[in-house]
């Protein structure tokens, strides 16, 4: 039962994290120049109309009062409505999360499914052509920014070869390129991480012992080495997945996917405070929970990790 206690403790620790994140963010957003009321009502709106809208938005209260009111609403699961289109923040996020989750999951599956075997095989065949090749691919993918790689893939697979749609989220073919682009960087990390980790493990004494006892090479790798080498890889997967949830802005923008990243970036551009705050809170919770799950998985894989302590 120690893992339940551990999980509860970690979840409770999320509360101060959320408070810190939201306070800092709210203060920055509130201090930035905000001509939203005038922009929304137009240049020719009267002072009274602008004042009334600002009052409705609560812009005339001191920042701390606004923050406390906002967080009180959050405690009642009332995240407010968008200042731009008056849509409910919770609904907006819920509507867009599935798209982001889908490309994040697919991208991580792609990165893990391709990257880990490549990395492990590279480690086993260290300094071979395959090893050099996979290291080169990893470096290449790592150094290519998503906006460039995405555009190049659009040009090649969509415009030139006509195989896929350039953008959109209506058919399954729209979800082929985005996960590959989003996962390209993660794939590079996976190759490097699993290679390095495997190299560390296969030099350990217990691997030498297993070999000396006459265990087959495949069994040594699969049963003894891989399990231990996966722990840092799993940690990395968690970090990358969390990053994909909040950081898929570029990919979503290039491929016209109506996800959380696009919601956040548009809200930041238009100073739509309720959307920015709500999205950041949700993403913080998701990232916290993913990290917790990763820790629990690590504990399951490696019995030496004692959650109770």
């Amino acid at each position: 039962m120690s893992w339940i206690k551990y999980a509860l403790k970690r979840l409770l620790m999320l509360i101060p994290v959320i408070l810190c994140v939201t306070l800092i963010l709210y203060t920055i957003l509130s201090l930035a120049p905000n001509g939203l009321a005038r922009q929304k009502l137009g240049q020719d709106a009267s002072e009274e109309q602008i004042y009334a809208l600002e009052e409705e938005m609560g812009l005339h209260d001191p920042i701390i009062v606004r923050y406390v009111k906002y967080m009180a609403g959050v405690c009642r699961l009332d995240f407010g409505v968008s200042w731009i289109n008056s849509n409910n923040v919770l609904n907006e996020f819920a509507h867009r999360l599935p798209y982001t989750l889908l490309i994040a999951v697919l991208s991580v599956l792609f990165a893990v499914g391709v990257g880990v075997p490549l990395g492990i095989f590279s480690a086993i065949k260290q300094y071979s052509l395959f090893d050099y090749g996979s290291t080169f691919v990893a470096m290449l993918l790592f150094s290519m920014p998503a906006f460039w790689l995405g555009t190049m893939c659009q040009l090649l697979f969509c415009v030139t070869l006509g195989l896929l749609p350039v953008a959109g989220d209506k058919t399954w073919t729209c979800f082929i390129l985005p996960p590959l682009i989003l996962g390209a960087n993660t794939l590079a990390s996976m190759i490097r991480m699993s290679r390095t980790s495997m190299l560390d493990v296969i030099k350990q004494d217990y691997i030498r012992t297993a070999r000396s006892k006459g265990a087959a090479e495949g069994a040594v790798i699969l049963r003894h080495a891989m399990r231990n080498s996966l722990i840092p890889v799993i940690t990395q997967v968690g970090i990358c997945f969390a990053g994909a949830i909040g950081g898929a802005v570029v990919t979503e923008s290039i491929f016209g996917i109506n996800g959380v990243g696009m919601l956040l970036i548009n809200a930041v551009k238009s100073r739509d405070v309720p959307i920015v705050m709500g999205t950041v809170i949700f993403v913080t919770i998701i990232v916290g929970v993913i990290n917790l799950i990763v820790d629990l998985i690590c504990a399951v894989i490696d019995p030496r990790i004692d959650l109770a302590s």
Partner: protein
Amino acid sequence: MKKKFLAALLATAMLLGVSACGPKDPAPSAGANNPGGTQSTAPNNQGGGTTAQGKDSVVLATSGEPIRFMAQSSQSCSGDDNLVLSNVYDCLLFLEPNGELTPALAESYEVSEDGLTYTWHLRKGVKFHDGSEMTAEDVKFTFDLGAAGPIGAALFINLESTEVVDDSTVVMHLSAPYAAFPYGVASRLGGIISKAYFDKVGGEDGYLAAPMGTGPYKFVEAVSGSHITLEAFEDYWRGPAPIKTATIQIVSDTNTQVLGLQNGDYDAIRNPSIEVCTRFDSVDNVDWNYTDSTGRITLYLAAWGGHDWDLNFRKAVQCAINKDDINTATNSGYATILDIDMCPMYGGYPTEGIETVKYDPDQAKAYLAQSSYNNEPYSILVQSGTTYEAAAKIIQAQLMAVGINCQVNAVDGQTKTSLQTNRDFDALIGENLSSLVDADGVKSFFLFNRGDPTRLYQREEELCDMFAQGAILQGDARLPYYVDACNIITQEAYMVPLYNGIITVAHNAALQGADAHCLGNFNFYYWSWAK
């Protein structure tokens, strides 16, 4: 062996990169086609690409998202909303792409001699999307609601009351004559709404969620951040539109829009830059066209407390700016250079008696020598990421060439609005759009100062009086006031008009009627696929 493998791998990667970067067609067209004109079409459509066989739908890609679908609401509306408003609602008058007014829901109208009364004769048999007939009561309701809303004071200027005379006649009373009033009637705020439906759906919120008008398209759905779907209204008073389904797709990335158009994912893209458009000249299945917008791109020069640059300094700035260079760099030379802060299509645009300032760097240096300028930093405020930022950088170079220590302060839109409202800038580049398509729109910059009352131009009140005089007169009687106002602005060097804005549209070559509109409207009613 290993070295060979690595070399082959590198070469393959480079080839892939280079082939993907290269143009689809080897010979991009040189030069600009018909610069300065009102319409231009890419000449080399060779009929390749998309076929339109049996197609009756279009997808328009746009980065700006329409979000408010009733112009008269207390939430106001923006230019992006026009994409929906101009297709769902009809006005009493149509504003044509070239800025002319033509009859729409009003078959005709008369203006009283004193300019205070407008009598509108409504078209009979016009139906709303729910099948109910449009009545004079609906017109009155629309104008009463619009006048009380946030943009009523800007678009229904001087409208005092609206009176229903009979089922097909409405009279509007103005508190003072206003020459540009018909443009307000033809603006988005004049889109006629149904009083009965407004009451039925529970008022503004219900109407915003499910808008309904008499326009050629019915609103079907809006998915936030994704798309808006419109469907042709079969009982439309001008006959049903050839395009049965129009989808407005929100695509924030402009490169994606361009690639999507080439790939056939989108049928048209809204307002791509001229630079992008000229690249379409070498693409078989894409055409493009452009027209002058109702906006002026102008450099406003501060001359008030805290930013009190003297007249000689401002004149130096005036003379140091080469507008042709700016036009070439930002619009490939397609834009119309402006001498005054008015678009030539505006009602009341003066063609004679205007004083202009020519590009003369030597004269600029002479003015600078006479000024009190002492190499202080001079900052140009501009919204970042816009073509105006490029214009600002060119002006920076031009001003530095005559000895002005110029800087560019590129900020986001909200910050720019805030600084502009408070008149907290040395110089500012911005686009002033005018829905009224009238010379009176120029006054908006002078009326915009609502922050610090001490930050006024010395002759601001005099200018506002002149614009007020020009607005109440009709026809050529208005011109002397606008000539005087423009000449004061030039003599005092309050601003440097740069160029007329441009509206562009790029579309599938098989799509007909997709012409750019001066207000950036997209009237799907005129669109059709080539047989």
